[in-house]
């Protein structure tokens, strides 16, 4: 018989959940080294914090980098005893569907929420390094300004041009195969991992350079997503014209890092190739039809 929530506390008492059979289970202290800055290029410095991890039996489920940052925020004192400030970073859903907490962890870009410390720092005294993404201007600490990515989505008209929100019946039918392909592309959360890892994608602080510099895999893949939709395809020409131009599909260097780091495992390189074909055919057609 249930007496009260205190006996079975939803938030705190989750005995046994943490240990999933893998990784270390003992209590330990790890070090978290963070590249901080007051704003882009200003007062850039490294700070190191200690984070105490309870043993598996004491834990409320798996511990990730966000939990470490939360612990640091509640008592921001560096290893050398200096009182610092909570580390600034973006976060949202904490289950890897919003894309907010993207950062460079131990040298590679990924979401901090799905980065479990048992995988990254299995032993006492292990070090995890956190850096902001390098392809975007730093707002503060680990928070970067990714607005360029959203602007790029607008440049390829990443939407289906519907006739308003009126009741106009169903949308176009599609086969389960088409749906599955589109669904995969549609899970892109604009996190920017593919851009950070791309050797062709460059940091641009000057907005006037946005158009000329490589647009990156995410946006190319989104253009493909909308071209695949019956109504979306009515704007195919505009999208292909944009992608055929400077900073578009031709700037891809085919390192294929994008597909390796994509947390949603979106077939980005297939999108790039598919858009490569579309752009090629589009330009050939244009050449011969004169339109």
């Amino acid at each position, binding site marked *: 018989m249930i007496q009260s929530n205190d006996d079975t506390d939803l938030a705190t008492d989750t005995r046994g959940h943490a240990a999933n059979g893998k990784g270390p289970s003992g209590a330990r202290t790890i070090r978290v080294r963070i590249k901080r800055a007051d704003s882009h290029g200003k007062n850039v410095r490294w700070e190191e914090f200690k984070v105490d991890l309870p043993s598996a039996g004491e834990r409320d489920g798996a511990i990730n980098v966000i939990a470490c940052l939360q612990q640091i925020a509640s008592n921001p004192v560096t290893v050398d005893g200096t009182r610092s400030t909570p580390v*600034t970073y973006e976060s949202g859903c904490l289950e890897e569907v919003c894309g907010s907490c993207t950062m460079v962890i131990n040298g590679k870009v990924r979401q901090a929420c799905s980065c479990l410390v048992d995988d990254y720092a299995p032993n006492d005294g292990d070090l995890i390094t956190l850096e902001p993404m390098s392809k975007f201007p730093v707002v503060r600490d680990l928070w970067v300004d990714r607005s360029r990515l959203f602007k790029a989505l607008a440049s390829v008209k990443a939407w289906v041009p519907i006739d308003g929100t009126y009741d*106009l019946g169903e949308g176009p039918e599609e*086969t389960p195969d088409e749906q599955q392909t589109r669904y995969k592309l549609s899970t892109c959360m604009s996190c920017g991992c593919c851009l950070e890892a791309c050797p062709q994608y460059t940091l641009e602080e000057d907005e006037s350079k946005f158009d000329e510099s490589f647009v990156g895999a995410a946006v190319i893949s989104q253009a493909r997503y909308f071209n695949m939709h019956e109504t979306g395809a009515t704007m195919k020409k505009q999208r292909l014209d944009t992608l055929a131009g400077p900073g578009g599909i031709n700037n891809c260097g085919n390192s294929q890092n994008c597909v390796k780091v994509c947390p949603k495992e979106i077939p980005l390189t297939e999108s790039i190739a598919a858009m490569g074909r579309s752009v090629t055919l589009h330009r050939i057609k244009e050449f011969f039809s004169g339109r």
Partner: protein
Amino acid sequence: MVTPSAQQRVIVVGGGLAGLAATIRIAESGMPVDLFSLVPVKRSHSVCAQGGINACNKIARQQGYSEYEHFDETLYGGDFLQHQPPVYEMAQWAPKIIDLFDRMGVPFNRTSEGQRALRLFGGSLYKRTHFSGATTGQQLMYALDEQTRRYEAEGKVNKYEFWEFLRPLMDDQGVCCGIVAQDLRTMQIRAFRGDAVVMATGGPGLVFGKSTNSVMCTGAAASRCFQAGAKYGNPEFIQVHPTAIPGADKLRLMSESARGEGGRVWVPAKKDAEGRWQPHPESGRDPRQIPTEERWYFLEEKYPAYGNIVPRDIATREIFDTCMKGFGVGGGNMVYLDLSHKSREELETKLGGIIEIYRKFVGEDPVEVPMKIFPGVHYSMGGLWTQYSPNRKYDEIAKKLREINDPIEARNLPVQKRNNEILQRNYEIDQQIADLRDKGGSDDEVQKLEDSKQTPEKLEPYVSLADLHGKDALPVGMDPDAPNNMMTNIPGLYAFGEVNYQYHGGTRLGANALLSCTFDGLFCGRSVVNFVRERAHTPAASLPSSIFDKGVEAEESRMKQLVESSGGENPYEIAKELGLEMTASSTVIKTGPRLEQSLNKLEELRDRYSRISLSDSGFWTNQNLSWARAVGDMIALADPIVRGGLAREESRGSHYRTDFLGRDDSRFLKTTVAEFDASTGRSKISFEEVERGLVGPRVRDYSTTKKSKAQVPAPTSADDPKQSPRVSDPNADVSGARDVRAPGDSEKVSS
């Protein structure tokens, strides 16, 4: 109609499903929108919604389902606490909303024929949930995000991302005329003029510390409106989702769709000589090796009709209760949610999103091994109190039905009262039995106690709209032209989505949230436009700047105060304690004394909050400041949640008080209305009738199929512990039971 003034604009706060739907609708009508969001709108919390969105559809319709059924199920699920006209309207609109998303390009799962696929969801025996993998919220919200981007590119929408809403502003007449907001990067505080303000700021999950909500779901925006004079409705109704995976930073949702697609909840157990389930003595066994006869599928056993897809509050209490009785996996607080009998291909196609989350965060593959889950705070049915105008036929029909039902109600209420007393006594007997068993009492003694339990009486059924007029659409929902639909008590200040208290009553049915959020934006967006047009002669732009300057000054001084305060209290610690306290007192199980205790704790936290110190006192991108400010507002919002829970001396939907078991319609078939008392900083609770002229309040019982016809007498209460176990053989072929609900097989479904 007055032409909208060129200067007029609308402010939308919040960029989730509701906010974006409103933005699109309003922008589409030619009204410029300023859209404020804490995060880039594409990262809003709506992306976390997984399972799907409900709507009557072609297949279900041919099986006997209808918009009316959807409406009725929603009321039934919500324990009849809703105002009925808005729910009616929402159900009517649901199919149109699906069509709209379809046109926007949402990749809904498809059948082999290319039709939109459907899945089963909590609280229904029909497949009426449309879905896009297990990331439906993400997909729907992206579709709206894309349309918003389109309007943004056309100059109709201005986005203010990384701006925090600080307070609504009212003119001398008390009409909302703008907001004060802060840029979280530069920390600049600014006032914005708006001829209407739409709050679409979601739920207050973080008040409970860890929840399935995103980190920005503090409820601070709603709290700021509340503190500015907006009423708050049904604050005590907090939904605890039955299936989540715990984590150090948050609880991660495992969608109800896992159960809708055939996932089964069980615990390892063993039957004793009398055939009663007992916790299995061996713990730590590999779940795959546990034989079928040692798996207790307790939901299927207790609720043979709905099985694993009973509404969330019921599933949550059962899981909770099962673990409390020592059945939890490994003796801990978790049960198995088992999908391992399903094919990998089907799971990847339909549930890929959640399977991936489980794999990433737990490290095990749900296709192979049953998932270990436990309930977690998920959704707030309560929210800012709002109004609406019923459509033209509502009053007439409601009057007619009330005339028939009032005498029935007069006969039923005393019965309900007696039944509640029986429930309460039976509950106490159960506790005595538990004590007796602990002390090793004899079976005879136990049996004697069991025999002393009473069975509640049956209630007389009410006559409903369908009994009189059939199930076809009637103009008894909301008036689409009325400007006050989903407007708070502050004229011009609207509340859409989770921050609106409407539609869900005592418990929200799964896959109704995406619907209500979008519906608010689309349907009531028009109301906003109408409101703005009506005030074209006094646009916000013409108001004196002193109103706006004052708001900015107030917020600047609040910020200054926070930054300069040096009492040594840590806002993170206070938030943590608040979360623990609220979870303990105001979630699954509530009691009067525990809630009283919480009020004292809130006093303590309030006091300590006045002495906090920030660890970052800078004026640039100071998240510490933003968080600390929100913590104060979270305490202010926790107050009505606790007080509402204390005042509501009954059990209804997610609000379950062991000291007041059973629903008390005579006193509490009413909306809890909380008002903030600025002089004391506490809230005042009052109750207000709900508009329930279409369907009478049946007893909510998910152990049998739903009976909506008046001719069929409703069975006894679900809360009656004696009535619950109906199937003696837990190993009965439940997979067969699930097939009953497959499309094309309608005759077994009651209507």
